[in-house]
């Protein structure tokens, strides 16, 4: 599993090239990935002063090698937090990378408004509306209450009330 968390505070550094580079860093221990990456690196070093990694090279390496690995899951979290231009380039690159690799899975998360963009590159993508269920909130509350630093400050009645009211109010599901 190779993951990347997009962050709106880091948009400048989170270019498509750097995002795919970070995916390759995580897959780097695999020989299938390491060898072509080393080759590309050496080629880049031969250019005077050294050349930065280039998007088409990284896409080609991933495209050619990912199908050789048993199963890779590429996760990109918070697509909406990267710049529109980056997002479109990233989706286009991912589309190219996984096109001929049925073993690879891509997991994307984002706010509802990026769905149209995802569908533009992956018209058949599976979509799931994500929101905490009342069960999720109950589990979370129990955990938080068990860590309460002053447990005696709350009586059973209040605890019961918290457990019944909050999950109902918060969960949209």
């Amino acid at each position: 599993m190779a993951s990347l968390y997009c962050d709106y505070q880091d948009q400048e550094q989170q270019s498509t090239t750097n995002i795919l580079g970070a995916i390759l860093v995580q897959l780097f221990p695999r020989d299938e990935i390491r060898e072509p990456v080393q080759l590309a690196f050496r080629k880049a070093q031969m250019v005077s002063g050294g050349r930065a990694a280039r998007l088409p090279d990284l896409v080609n390496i991933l495209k050619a090698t990912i199908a050789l690995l048993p199963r890779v899951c590429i996760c990109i979290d918070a697509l909406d937090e990267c710049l529109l231009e980056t997002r479109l380039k990233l989706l286009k690159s991912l589309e190219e990378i996984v096109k001929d690799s049925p073993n690879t899975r891509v997991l994307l998360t984002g706010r509802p408004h990026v769905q149209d963009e995802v569908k533009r590159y992956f018209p058949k993508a599976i979509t799931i509306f994500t929101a905490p269920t009342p069960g999720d909130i109950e589990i979370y509350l129990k955990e938080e209450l068990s860590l309460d630093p002053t447990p005696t400050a709350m009586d059973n009645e209040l605890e019961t009330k918290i457990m019944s009211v909050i999950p109902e109010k918060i969960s949209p599901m």
Partner: protein
Amino acid sequence: MQSIGSNNTNSGNVTDSYNNTTINITDQDNQIKQWLSPLTPQYRHQSVQNARVEGVGEWLLQKSEFREWRGSRGVPGRTVLFCYGDPGVGKTHIRLVRKSPGQQGITDRQRYQLLSC
């Protein structure tokens, strides 16, 4: 000897050729990783993992859409899953959802497979 030292600034403690080779390989791997990307998602990954509460989001694993996505034979185009929702609903933690340890009939290996899609 001086020329070797000046080409490799990290080899100050090297005493024999075997060690020298090992250090050079590690050096180059690190150089390549830096060349690939300055981003460091592993730190964020650690904090997300620490913040998650076991059992939250298990409903996702039961959903037919999720099962289809992670099914062993990828139907073209259906290998991409997009989880959408408003800020703060827990999308970031989705990828770490796994069956809780207490659940019957699940081996560690299967649990790991769920975690890694």
